[in-house]
């Protein structure tokens, strides 16, 4: 299982966390996102309204990075602090 954590506007649509089964030894981040978007219209809609970056196990990673079973994947809309 991969624990997917959502922040900001994406958390409004999806809640804070979901666990997903990869169905394969590993998948690209982009493939995980595509699957979530196909399965959840609210996520697809939220995703379309913002730019998203990714972190695997708390390290920023590109969309073509590999996610493995047991990893934590975070979906990060644009940061806005201060």
């Amino acid at each position, binding site marked *: 299982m991969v624990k997917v954590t959502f*922040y900001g506007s994406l958390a409004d649509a999806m809640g804070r966390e979901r666990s997903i089964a990869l169905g394969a030894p590993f998948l690209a981040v982009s493939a995980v996102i595509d699957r979530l978007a196909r399965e959840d219209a609210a996520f697809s809609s939220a995703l379309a309204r913002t730019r998203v970056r990714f972190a695997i196990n708390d390290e920023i990673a590109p969309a073509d990075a590999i996610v493995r079973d047991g990893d934590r994947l975070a979906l*990060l*809309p644009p*940061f806005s*602090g*201060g």
Partner: protein
Amino acid sequence: MQSFGTATGSPCCRRSAADEVIALSPSPIDAAALAEAFGREVEDAGAIATFTGIVRRDGGKDVEALYLDHAPGMTERAIRNAVDEAKARWPLVRVEVVHRIGKIPAGEAVVFVAAAAAHRRAAFEACDFLVDFLKTDAPFWKKQISRTGEEWIEPRAEDYDDRGRWR
């Protein structure tokens, strides 16, 4: 002591042994009290620069509050990296960053930043650098709550430009 170049390519001072406080606060922060306590902890500094960010009502939007989301662990680490960079780039005596999380009513402080140094230029610039970092590069997400609804907001173009000054 480690020494390395800055983003501008100019020689950098050694990483300082400056004291630091980095905190995320779910409860209201008293910027005046933080500034006073910061000053009491500082020895041998000729300059202290502080910044307090406050939730604006934002004119016609009549903002009631901001909600600050964050990523536990990742957010603290990002702030620590920025503080380390500030300490490497400027000769600082003490640095403090206290950032609210959760719901913050209009008029209340969102963030307090302080930097102490022997001379004013380092204190001003380090404080400015840290605020610009927090605006665009720290894992926070800001939702504006007003009478008309809720809206996640992103940094302005000016915020990204300001951040770019330090690269």
